């Protein structure tokens, strides 16, 4: 039993990492939804290849699915190039059609075989360990692990050898083209990888959850780092945590494993979304608040500096002045003054507000800056 559980977790983790690798580039190239389109459309390829081979574990299924994945990308780009429709509409038209044809074919012609649209959509990781690979009667473990490992090796090899090309064409397609790197070719190579990854993963996690594993971990990683290499490793890490956490959740609730993995990856993304050190929503709020306070302090010190130069009595009316001219509320004004006193920008001399040397420096600095 322990080995079965271990095998499921291993398969889930491998799948998550395999999906996260091309996902990083999908996010950065702003074509994340091609993963959605491809992972739906490959159903048609699987069905057509199945009609030819009559065998669900034939490698031809992977070939067929990959070809249909590339067909999806080409059809979408063909429609975009006619300038009759925008990119989003083109994507939204092509994959539902290919997917629909696949579903209809399954429902009409494969009634008695174990392939249905549900299993393509959801996958069933729990059954993966029972589908084992035997060579000369030697048990080599679940077949799914071998398939996904091959896809993983392919992804790693491609990214390793074409790292420079991928990086350049992702961040500056124009420069890549000028230097002779064929960004179009890289694009199609990446889309081929996405297709192969999607078809290798679909049996375990289902097509829609392939999308979750391709997009959510890299999107989270994107909020944590600015370096491509770091982003790749963080995405893989988040993928593994989602896989193992998802298995735990599925075990606890007796629910679908792939769905649980997607849920955990979503939860991790939400945590990052709020708490990421520099780009999270909370960090943004803190920064915004600090800017607001800094601006208020600058305004106050500059006004005091002006008063020093023109007329010393002016400082006595500074509070009413700020209220009248800057539309500050009395409460906000006293809050800013208190804060400025605490930060030692100003001092209170009786009813008078006086700039400290430090405060004068700040006022001058903000005048220079603007």
């Amino acid at each position, binding site marked *: 039993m322990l080995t079965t559980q271990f095998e499921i977790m291993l398969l889930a983790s491998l799948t998550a990492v395999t999906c996260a690798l091309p996902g990083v580039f999908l996010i950065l190239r702003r074509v994340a939804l091609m993963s959605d389109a491809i992972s739906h459309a490959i159903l048609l390829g699987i069905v057509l290849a199945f009609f030819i081979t009559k065998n669900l574990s034939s490698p031809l299924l992977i070939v067929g699915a990959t070809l249909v994945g590339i067909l999806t990308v080409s059809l979408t780009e063909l429609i975009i190039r006619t300038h009759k429709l925008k990119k989003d509409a083109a994507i939204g038209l092509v994959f539902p059609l290919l*997917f629909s044809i696949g579903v*209809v074919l399954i429902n009409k012609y494969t009634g008695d075989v174990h392939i249905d649209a549900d299993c393509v959509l959801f996958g069933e990781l729990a059954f993966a360990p029972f589908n084992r690979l035997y060579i000369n009667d030697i048990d080599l473990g679940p077949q799914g692990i071998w398939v996904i490992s091959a896809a993983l090796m392919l992804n790693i090899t491609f990214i390793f050898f074409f790292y420079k090309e991928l990086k350049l064409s992702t961040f500056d397609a124009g420069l890549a083209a000028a230097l002779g790197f064929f960004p179009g070719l890289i694009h199609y190579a990446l889309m081929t990888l996405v297709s192969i990854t999607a078809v290798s993963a679909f049996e375990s996690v289902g097509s829609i959850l392939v999308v979750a594993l391709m997009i959510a971990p890299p999107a989270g990683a994107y909020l944590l780092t600015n370096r491509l290499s770091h982003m790749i490793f963080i995405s893989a890490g988040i993928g593994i945590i989602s896989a193992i956490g998802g298995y735990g959740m599925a075990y606890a609730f007796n629910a679908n494993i792939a769905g649980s993995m997607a849920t955990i*990856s*979503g939860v991790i993304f939400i945590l990052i979304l709020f708490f990421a050190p520099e780009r999270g929503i909370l960090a943004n709020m803190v920064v915004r608040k600090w800017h607001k306070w800094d601006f208020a302090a600058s305004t106050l010190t500059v006004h005091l500096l002006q008063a020093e130069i023109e007329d010393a009595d002016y400082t006595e009316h500074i509070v009413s002045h700020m209220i009248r001219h800057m539309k500050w509320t009395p409460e906000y004004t006293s809050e800013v003054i208190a804060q400025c006193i605490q930060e030692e920008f100003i001092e209170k001399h009786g009813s008078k507000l006086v700039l400290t040397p430090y405060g004068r420096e700040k006022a001058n600095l903000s005048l220079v800056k603007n």
Partner: protein
Amino acid sequence: MIEFIITLFSDHTLRIVALGAITIGITAGSLGAFAVLRQQSLLGDAIAHATLPGVCLAFLITQSKSSLILLIGAALAGWIGTLFLMLITRNTRIKKDAALGIILSVFFGFGLVLLTIVQKLPTATKAGLNKFLFGNAATLLQEDLTIIATLSAVVLMTLLLLWKEVKVCVFDEGFAKSIGIKITFVDILLTTLIVIAIVIGLQTVGVVLMSAMLVAPAAAARQWTDNLSVMVLLSAAFGALSGLSGAITSSLVSNLPTGPTIVIFLSTLVVISLCFAPRRGIMWDIIRYNKSRKQIQTTTMLKNLLLFSEINTNDPFHPHDIAALDAIGRGAIDQTMQELKNKGWAQQFKDKRWALTPVGLKEARSLTEEYEKGLITEN
């Protein structure tokens, strides 16, 4: 055929299915026009997938299979999905496509978890919620039809009442802002209407393919017109037509899920529109292209005939070898010469030699003059 129509309206189930599908097609088609024009075609996909956990949670909480309760759950989940979408795109550097992908897949994944939990409950029969995946028009009841019709009426009335505001916002946000229209309000309103349009179609078309009900009719309608009102009406008509055909076909043929069938009908309409719509269709592009290419070929040849004559001889009607003409022409030499001959601008001599006719000479002179005048004004 007539017999079929009579059956259609006398058979209770078929009548409900037909009316339901038409209503859904009209509502989704009308709103889809705005989604496509605002380049939000994939928003519908994300919302539709995001509704699944709502359906399951509504069932888990109320233990009721009433369509209204499930649809309310779906709408709430779809709404929360769009809120998350705005939260992500407005506060971080993550782009819309990635945000849509996250909402779509994570919500759907969570829905799937809930669905498996629901299916293991003793109170649930499996067929109950599964129809929300691919849709099953045959499960529509009189009660469902009432809900669908009421919600559609509300959606379409709202659209009609705020037509002017919505129209301005779709085409020129800046101008809309300047005349005091609250863009955020229109944005939220349109999104809400889209959520409702998606939700009413879930039972018939399913969450996976509901987005196509929005995008496809609008994409097809866009090809036929440049006028918003016409586009919305056409889109609604396409939606109704495909909805009807798909729902009826899937009800009559066994083992045919409704959603995919409707999508195939819709896609056929899109392909026809893309290829043959007047003026915008690809076929007209090809015709226009060939026509202008032919024109360039003949006028170039005409000018070349004159040029050759002026360089080599003083006789403008001197015949030239076709091989020489071909060498500096723009291709398709035989058709080009035939065209010139038909127009009476060139005549053929023996040994495949060609020369200008007097009419052709006059035409060539005026063309050359026009060309030189163009050069002068350009400089």
